[in-house]
C-alpha cells in the first residue's frame, strides 16, 4: 500500500514560562492511503500536537523545531506517485491551500469548535469559498449560458465576465476591487448561492434532517451531536484525502459516539481515503482502526496493525496499557501502571518510559531507542522487545 503521510523525526517544543516543554521527541510515523490509523495515548502525550504539526497549526508558544513531514499528493488516475512534498518547507500559502482541502480536521469540543456568532451556513460555505472558487465559477458559467436572457441587459455580460475571470484566477485583484464597490459586489451573490447549494448538499449527506433550516441556524440552536456533524461537514466539504479526527468522539455520549463513528466509517468509503483517529479509548480503536500507533510522553512507542497490537503487544507500555483495561468477568484487582506521567519540561533521559518500566535496563536510561520494524510492519521502540 502506498504511503500518504510520512513523518520523520518530528520535534515540536512549547516555549512556556516554566521552560521548554519538549512535547514531541522525534516522532516517525507513516500513514498509508486508504486506512484508518488510530493514535492512542494518555492526555498530554502529544497526540494533538502531532496532528497539528502535520497541518502546521501549532499555536504560539508552540514551535515545530525539526523533522520532515512528507505528503504524497494523489495524482488523479495515474498509478505512479508524484514527488512527495515536505510540508514543513512549504509556504504558508501552500499550507492554506492544503488545509481543509486536502487534509482537514475535526475537533474534540463541538461546542467550542464552531464560532458562536456566525451562522452554520456561513461556516460551512467558508470551506467552499476558500478552496472551490474555480469549480464553482465553472458551474455558474454553465448555468449562465443555459439561462434565458430575461435579466437586464447589462447584468449578464458583467456576471459572465466576472466568473470567467474567477475561473481563470481565483485571486484576481480586479474581483477583489469589485467586492469593495457597493453595487458591483453583488457579483458574489451567485457564488454564495452556489456555496449554499453545495453546503446544504454536504449537510444532507451527513444524515442531518432539515438541512436547509440548519443552514440558517446558529450553533447555539443545535445539540452537541448535531454540532459535531456540522464540524464534520466543514471538514468534508472539499473531499479531503486525509481526515484527522482529534478526539472527535470523546465529549459525546455513547450513543452519539457510535453514530459518529459509524458515519465516519461510511464516509471513509465514499469521500475520504484515510482517517487519522486520535483517541484515548482503546475500545474505539479496536472497533474502527486498521493500524494503531501508541504514544507515551511525546514519543511513539509502538505501531502495528490493530489485531497484531491487541494480541501481541511488544512494548512494555502497550502491554501495561492493555492490562489496565477492565475486562468482563475480571476477578482480581484492576492493574495500573506505577508512577505518573513525566513533566515534559525535564523529560527522563533515554527512553521516556524507563522510570515506570519493569523491564528497564541501564541502556534505556542513556539512549533513546529508535522505532524499528520487528517484522510484519510491527514497529516497536524498545530495547527489551528485540
Amino acid at each position: 500500500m502506498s504511503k500518504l503521510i510520512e513523518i520523520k523525526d518530528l520535534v515540536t517544543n512549547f516555549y512556556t514560562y516554566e521552560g521548554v516543554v519538549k512535547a514531541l521527541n522525534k516522532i516517525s510515523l507513516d500513514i498509508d492511503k486508504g486506512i484508518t490509523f488510530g493514535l492512542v495515548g494518555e492526555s498530554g502525550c502529544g497526540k494533538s500536537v502531532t496532528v497539528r504539526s502535520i497541518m502546521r497549526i501549532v499555536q504560539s508558544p508552540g514551535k515545530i523545531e525539526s523533522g520532515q513531514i512528507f505528503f504524497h499528493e494523489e495524482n488523479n488516475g495515474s498509478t505512479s506517485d508524484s514527488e512527495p512534498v515536505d510540508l514543513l518547507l512549504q509556504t504558508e500559502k501552500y499550507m492554506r491551500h492544503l488545509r481543509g482541502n486536502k487534509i482537514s480536521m475535526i475537533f474534540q469540543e463541538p461546542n467550542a469548535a464552531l464560532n458562536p456568532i456566525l451562522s452554520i451556513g456561513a461556516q460551512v460555505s467558508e470551506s467552499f469559498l476558500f478552496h472551490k472558487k474555480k469549480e464553482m465559477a465553472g458551474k455558474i458559467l454553465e448555468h449562465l449560458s443555459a439561462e434565458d436572457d430575461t435579466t437586464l441587459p447589462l447584468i449578464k455580460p458583467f456576471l459572465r465576465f466576472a466568473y470567467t475571470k474567477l475561473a481563470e484566477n481565483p485571486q484576481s485583484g480586479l474581483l477583489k476591487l469589485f467586492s469593495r464597490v457597493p453595487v458591483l459586489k453583488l457579483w458574489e451573490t451567485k457564488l454564495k448561492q452556489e456555496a449554499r447549494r453545495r453546503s446544504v448538499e454536504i449537510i444532507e449527506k451527513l444524515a442531518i434532517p432539515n438541512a436547509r433550516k440548519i443552514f440558517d441556524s446558529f450553533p447555539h440552536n443545535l445539540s452537541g451531536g448535531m454540532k459535531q456533524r456540522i464540524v464534520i461537514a466543514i471538514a468534508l466539504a472539499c473531499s479531503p484525502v486525509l481526515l484527522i479526527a482529534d478526539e472527535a468522539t470523546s465529549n459525546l455520549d455513547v450513543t452519539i459516539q457510535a453514530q459518529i463513528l459509524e458515519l465516519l466509517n461510511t464516509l471513509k468509503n465514499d469521500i475520504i481515503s484515510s482517517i487519522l483517529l486520535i483517541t484515548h479509548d482503546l475500545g474505539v480503536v479496536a472497533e474502527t482502526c486498521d493500524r494503531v500507533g501508541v504514544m507515551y510522553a511525546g514519543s511513539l512507542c509502538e505501531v502495528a496493525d490493530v489485531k497484531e497490537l491487541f494480541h501481541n503487544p511488544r512494548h512494555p507500555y502497550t502491554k501495561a496499557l492493555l492490562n489496565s483495561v477492565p475486562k468482563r468477568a475480571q476477578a482480581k484487582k484492576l492493574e495500573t501502571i506505577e508512577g505518573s506521567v513525566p513533566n515534559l519540561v525535564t523529560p527522563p533521559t533515554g527512553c521516556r518510559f524507563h522510570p515506570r518500566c519493569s523491564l528497564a535496563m541501564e541502556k534505556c536510561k542513556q539512549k533513546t531507542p529508535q522505532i524499528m520494524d520487528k517484522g510484519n510492519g510491527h514497529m516497536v521502540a524498545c530495547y527489551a522487545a528485540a
Partner: protein
Amino acid sequence: MIGVSILIFGLMMTFSPERRAAAFVTTPQMAKDIPMLIKKYGFDKPFYVQYFTWIKEVSHLNLGYSLVASRSVFDAFLYYFPITLELNLFASPCIILFGIWMGTIAGIKPNSFFDHFSRIFSIIGWSLPTFLFALVLMMIFYGYFPWFPPGVLSDKLTMFVMNSNDFIRYTHLYTIDGILNGRLDITLNALKYLALPVLTETIVICALLMRVMRSGMLEEMSKDYIITAMAKGADKKTIYLKHARRNALIPVITIAGQLIASLMEGSIAVEIIFNRQGIGWWLASSATQLDMPVLMSMCLVMAVVFVLSNLFVDLIYAYIDPRIRLS
C-alpha cells in the same frame, strides 16, 4: 426612569419649603412674600401631591428657570446642547474607530512593538488628568503654533454670515450648517476649533476601549473555533477580522455605549478649558451657583440618555450576537 425621577424629587424635598420658594425671589422686597409663594406653588402640600405636580410640569417640558443662563431650563438646554453634540459627533467616531483599531492590532500581535506603544499610549491617556492633557495640547497647538484656537466659531465675519438671512441654521451645529448652506469655509473653520477638544477626548477615552478590545482579541484568538477556521484553510485576515474580532467586539460595545452616553453630558474639563459653552460648562456653573432646577433636570436628562444608550447598545448586540436575537 421612574426610580430616577423619585430619587431626584427626593433630593429636592430635602430642601425646606422656604428654601425652594426663595428660588422665585428676585428682589429683596419679595422676601416677605415667601409664605405666599409657598402657598402659591403648593410647597406645603403632601409630598406625593407635589411629586405628581412636578411630573406633570416636567412632562410639559417645563423644567424651571436657569439663573446661570437666565432663560428657561429647556431653552437653555437647546442653546447649549448643540455645542456639546457637535463635539461628540466628531469625538465619538474617533474614539470608537481608533480604540477598536488599535486594540485589534495590539491583540493580534501581543508583545510586539505596536502593542507596547499602544500600552504606553493608553496608560498615559487613562492616567493623566483630562485638564492637564487639554492644557498641554493647547499650549503646543495654540501657544507655540497658532493653528487650533480654543472656543467656538465667533469671529465677526462668520457671525455676520451666520446671522444673515441667507444662512439658515438647520441644526445649530456649525459644521453641518456650513455644509448644508454650501459654505465649506465655515465648516473648515469650525473644524479648526473642534480639533483639539476632539483630540483630547479621543486620547483620554479611547484608552479604556483599546485595552478591552486587546484583551478580548487575545481571549478569542485562543478559542477552539479559531483552530477550526485555521484548519479550514482560512487566511489570517479572515481569521482575525471575521472570526475573532466580531466576538471580541461584544464587551467593547457595552463600554462604548456607556462612554458615549457619558460624553453626551459634556466633558466638564474639556469644555471649560477650551471655552466651549456646552452642557458640561453649563452644569459646572450651575453646580457652583446652586442652580437647582438645572441640576435636577440635567439628572433627568442624563437618565434618559443612559436609558436610550442602553437600548441602542442592545440593538447593536442583537445585530452582532445571534444568541441575543429574539426569535
